[in-house]
């Protein structure tokens, strides 16, 4: 919140009463968190299969990081804004992003695919660490707008070495922005272990930048939920940024193009498998009597339905209309792109029906530079004045939302 200069540099959160931050959770809430994790894992498994079967070009699996993502994602309110990296499928789920829109990115039919404002979830960011600065700026804007929300930005242990992340630490700190840095330390930056990124613990870095931090068991969904709730409350209260380091493990490969057997031992993987976040919550829920065979069967059925639905919708994702190539390069028209589009249309020789409304007034501006004909195409099918900017990408708008529906 704006007002007096923010008091940053709160002592590290060693005395946090974390259980108080999740004391309100009912049995249904706990089961809901488990459901989230089960469904997200199933989504992830299905995506991996789709890649293996040639339906996706690539997939970055979140296996092992479900608790960190669902726990933190479920801490967010409607007024908050999340900035993901490219593995935050679980957070996307919590923000109601259609999983098929994520599949579209990895299938190669879209670069983005959802409305960041609608979901409070920015687009995936593939350049490692770049999104931390966007989040810092966005959070500055939230404070100026007297927003009651905060921003949260996701990044990994590898990203912690990037200049942008360190610039974001400094920036958020000196301006006291309402921003939660959520580092999922999954132990690996592709093949490089976390110790190659830093000789200190990552969460210790916040001290040098002058803001509080906490390390949390990233495979404990309740701990992640609690600590993120605390951090968001701190940020929303105008006390500046917080760094959370969620210690977790990337159970799968970096992406489907990776071979972890070249750098990861079986013993290491097995040790972390024993700490599987889904198993841990399941054990707790079974012991507490919140989860029985009947509920588990229903959940398995729901998972199967989700996977089947996503498979069908993924395979049905059409290749974009080639004309999309030229859309939204800039807000205002660019004569060069307009001319290239016109030449592209002319070179394809499509039937006018197919390109109706797409050719622009190619005689304006600087003429053709594409297509090799030296002509601007001569097509005038855009004479109906249709605004080509109205055509959006081809990501299907599905009905599936990662809501915490009661069942």
């Amino acid at each position: 919140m704006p007002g007096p200069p923010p008091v940053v540099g709160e002592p590290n959160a060693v005395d946090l009463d974390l259980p108080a931050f999740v004391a309100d959770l009912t049995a249904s809430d706990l089961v809901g968190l488990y459901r989230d994790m089960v469904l997200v894992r199933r989504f992830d498994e299905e995506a991996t299969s789709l890649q293996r079967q040639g339906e996706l070009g690539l997939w970055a699996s979140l296996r092992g990081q479900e608790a960190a993502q669902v726990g933190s994602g479920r801490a967010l309110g409607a007024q908050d804004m999340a900035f993901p990296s490219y593995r935050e499928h679980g957070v996307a789920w919590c923000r109601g992003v259609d999983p098929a829109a994520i599949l579209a990115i990895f299938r190669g039919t879209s670069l983005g695919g959802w409305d960041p404002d609608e979901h409070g979830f920015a687009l995936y960011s593939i350049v490692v660490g770049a999104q931390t600065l966007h989040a810092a700026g966005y959070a500055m804007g939230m404070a100026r707008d007297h927003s009651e929300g905060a921003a949260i930005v996701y990044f990994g242990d590898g990203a912690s070495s990037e200049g942008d992340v360190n610039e974001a630490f400094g920036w958020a700190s000196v301006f006291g922005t309402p921003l939660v840095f959520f580092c999922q330390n999954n132990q690996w930056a592709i093949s490089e272990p976390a110790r190659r990124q830093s000789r200190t613990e990552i969460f210790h870095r916040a001290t040098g930048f002058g803001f509080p931090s906490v390390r949390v068991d990233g495979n404990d969904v309740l701990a992640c939920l609690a600590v993120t709730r605390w951090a968001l409350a701190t940020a929303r209260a105008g006390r500046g940024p917080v760094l959370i380091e969620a210690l977790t493990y990337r159970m799968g490969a970096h992406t489907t193009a990776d071979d972890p057997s070249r750098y990861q031992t079986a013993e290491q993987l097995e040790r972390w498998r024993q700490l599987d976040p889904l198993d841990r919550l399941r054990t707790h829920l079974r012991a507490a009597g919140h989860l029985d065979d009947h509920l588990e069967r229903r959940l398995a059925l729901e998972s199967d339905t989700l996977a089947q639905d996503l498979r069908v919708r993924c395979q049905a994702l059409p290749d974009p209309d080639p004309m999309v190539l030229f859309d939204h390069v800039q807000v205002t028209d660019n004569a060069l792109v307009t001319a290239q589009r016109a030449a592209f249309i002319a070179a394809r020789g499509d039937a006018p029906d197919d390109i109706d409304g797409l050719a622009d007034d190619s005689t304006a501006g600087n003429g053709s530079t594409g297509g090799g004909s030296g002509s601007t195409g001569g097509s005038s099918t855009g004479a109906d004045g249709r605004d080509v900017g109205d055509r959006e990408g081809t990501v299907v708008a599905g009905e599936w939302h990662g809501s915490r529906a009661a069942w």
Partner: protein
Amino acid sequence: MVTGGVATGAAARGGVVTGQPAGSGEVHTGGRAATGASPASSGAVPGESGPPTPITLAKALNLGLHAAMAADPKVIVMGEDVGTLGGVFRVTDGLQREFGEARVIDTPLAESAIIGTAIGLAMRGYRPVCEIQFDGFVYPAFDQIVSQLAKLHYRSAGRIRLPVTIRIPFGGGIGAVEHHSESPEAYFCHTAGLKVVACSNPHDAHHMIQQAIHSDDPVIFLEPKRRYWEKAVVDQRPLADLASDTADTAGGADGLHRSVVVRAGSDATLVGYGPTVRTCLDAADVSATDDDRSLEVIDLRSLSPLDLGPVLDSVRRTGRLVVVHEAPSNVSVSAEVAARVTEEAFYSLEAPVLRVTGFDTPYPPARLEDHYLPDVDRILDAVDRSFAF
């Protein structure tokens, strides 16, 4: 079409009042920045009446920024030393006093963060105007500019608009140390999603900065730092009140992405932008006096997108074209102009398109920069070679 009329174009844009004798070639302004002389410290202030007073290019920018901030509360100025100090060239002088620390932000020395956070602010509905202190300091922000700022509109299928203006004092000629004299425009012209413009005179500077800020696209706004001290009368009426002579501008001044003829001629065409427009005008003066040649001079103003209409019109009349910039030649703006003119006006050309540019070397020590920078002699030599074909 020649915007603004050939005969009056230059005078109307105030591009001819410089205090420099015609044909004198380059005026070495080295040391002015170092001694703290403020190019923006003189000239008219908003609301002042009386006879028009010539103001410097830096002051014209300052007043343009002032006008943009007054017109839209979402406009934020951010950069290193832009607040209390008013910028190292004083282009933001007085803005923080007028609009407060919340809107004129002295940032950490982190160029990537300046652009990266501006992206976040723009996503939140703000209209940031970032200052990169010197051309050679823009590279730490390169990823944020070319991979994020330029591409997010496309990545989001048009959902995200990033009206971010990046002001960069560019070019040499002030006797500066390394990294303070470079011309990085080609990097940004090569990137889809960015618009790149360069002002060359006070009048354009005043209006183009407001148009850039008004643009819903990201704009790289290049300021010819060795021309900061040049003076001209600037029409400071609001953009909307100026008579429009082009169709595509929200205000009345020349459209942001229009090139203009700043000196009419009939024998050959000189094309420049930013600091070399003055050099081209000086060369045309000398050529008229010494060689009895009538050289037309065109200020590109917009480097991406290029507006080659006036250039093509001119070349179709003159048949000869020389393109001048300080940046190195290899894969440069002049290379693009040459290629496009050759494609579009091949049969009008009496000679190959020739170029006068900085050398394809790193920018040299300042004591050598007069050899590096295009000057009147090199331009006229190119004109001679064009006529020799």
